[in-house]
């Protein structure tokens, strides 16, 4: 009797043990793994520039000489967060204004040491506080002059194409950021009449 009871208990225990074996693989199936992907979106910096395209200066010379001036507005937009630099230079290696064989020579003044124009010369200028221009000797501000016989405004000669001059350096994005660039010429009656022209190039570059 006892022997049969032991056999039944043994059979039940074996059944439970088997059940345990069967349940155990179900618990093992809950293990998991994960993987990550980094999304990189690189937005390129872009920059655009526009100018007035033409600056017209009219002069009626006198024996002693007179100065006339006019301005150009350079507009720059960029999404570049470090900002941009703006440079100016003649469009070629010849820095004279020409009318046939007659010329205006680029002023001998520089950005650091601009000068009042002498007869037969022309120059450019920006306000001395122009952002990031660096050391300069320009006037605090400029306004249009027309046949001014006693002009004292100070001007720099345009650099040749190979030696552009820094006009502005910013530190943030820009939307139609404007820079006013002034141009002037001085002539006496020995300056032949006519229409003198030259082309300057502005270059805006992201930092």
């Amino acid at each position, binding site marked *: 009797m006892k022997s049969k009871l032991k056999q039944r208990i043994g059979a039940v225990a074996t059944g439970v043990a088997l059940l345990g074996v069967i349940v155990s693989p179900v618990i093992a199936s809950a293990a998991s793994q994960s993987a990550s992907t980094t999304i990189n979106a690189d937005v390129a910096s872009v*920059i655009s520039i526009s100018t007035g395209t033409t600056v017209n*200066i009219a002069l009626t*010379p006198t024996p002693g000489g007179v100065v006339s001036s006019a301005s150009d507005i350079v507009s720059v937009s960029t999404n570049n967060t470090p900002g941009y630099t703006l440079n100016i230079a003649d469009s070629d290696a010849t820095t004279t204004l020409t009318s046939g064989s007659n010329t205006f020579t680029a002023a001998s003044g520089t950005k650091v040491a601009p000068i009042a124009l002498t007869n037969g010369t022309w120059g450019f200028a920006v306000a001395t506080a122009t952002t990031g221009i660096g050391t300069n000797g320009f006037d605090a501000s400029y306004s249009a002059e027309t046949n001014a016989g006693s002009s004292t405004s100070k001007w720099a000669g345009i650099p040749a194409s190979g030696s552009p001059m820094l006009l502005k350096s910013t530190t943030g994005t820009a939307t139609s950021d404007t820079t006013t660039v002034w141009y002037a010429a001085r002539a006496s009656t020995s300056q032949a009449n006519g229409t003198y022209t030259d082309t300057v190039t502005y270059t805006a570059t992201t930092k």
Partner: protein
Amino acid sequence: MGVWRKRGLLVSGSLSSLVLTFASAAVVSGASSSGNTTITVTIADVISVSTPSTVSISLTPTTGGAVSSASDTVTVSTNNTTGYTLTLADADATTTLASGSNTFTAHTGTQTTPTALANARWGYRVVGLGGFGATAYSAETNNNSSTSTWAGMPANASPNTIKTTATTATNDTTTVWYGVRANTSQPGGAYTGTITYTAVTN
């Protein structure tokens, strides 16, 4: 083994991202834009003319008549590359030299056909112009046998052109001679008239 492949892919992906980032940064630093502006300076043509303002001629008449002359120098400057035109005329419609009611009448010769002065006449001449010829001329003083030729001064409404140039000029001078002829019937006195020079850019 599968885990190692996944890690390998992740590492590989990271390197790709870095490469792209560096390449992108290179593009950013080079972005630029240029614009041109043409600078135009227009120089107006200007001109100036000057004269000594007075020409004085002294004459002591003779019975047959004598000629005296003196010169004026007209100076013109202009920046006009196509030159200028210089004209002269009497300052008004009356072309006589007058001293009260007494006069010298403008000569009848012309620039094209200048002639010797008759008594009580006055005129002008410009060497090298029209019929005056290119022979040098010098002042005459009470010359009883003058053969120099002269033109009569036109009224102000009909100026005569005495010079036309084709380029700029700096103190370009023109010598204009004035001569009178008188005999003893000409009353003494100071006779005057005013002429006007006009320089116009071409």
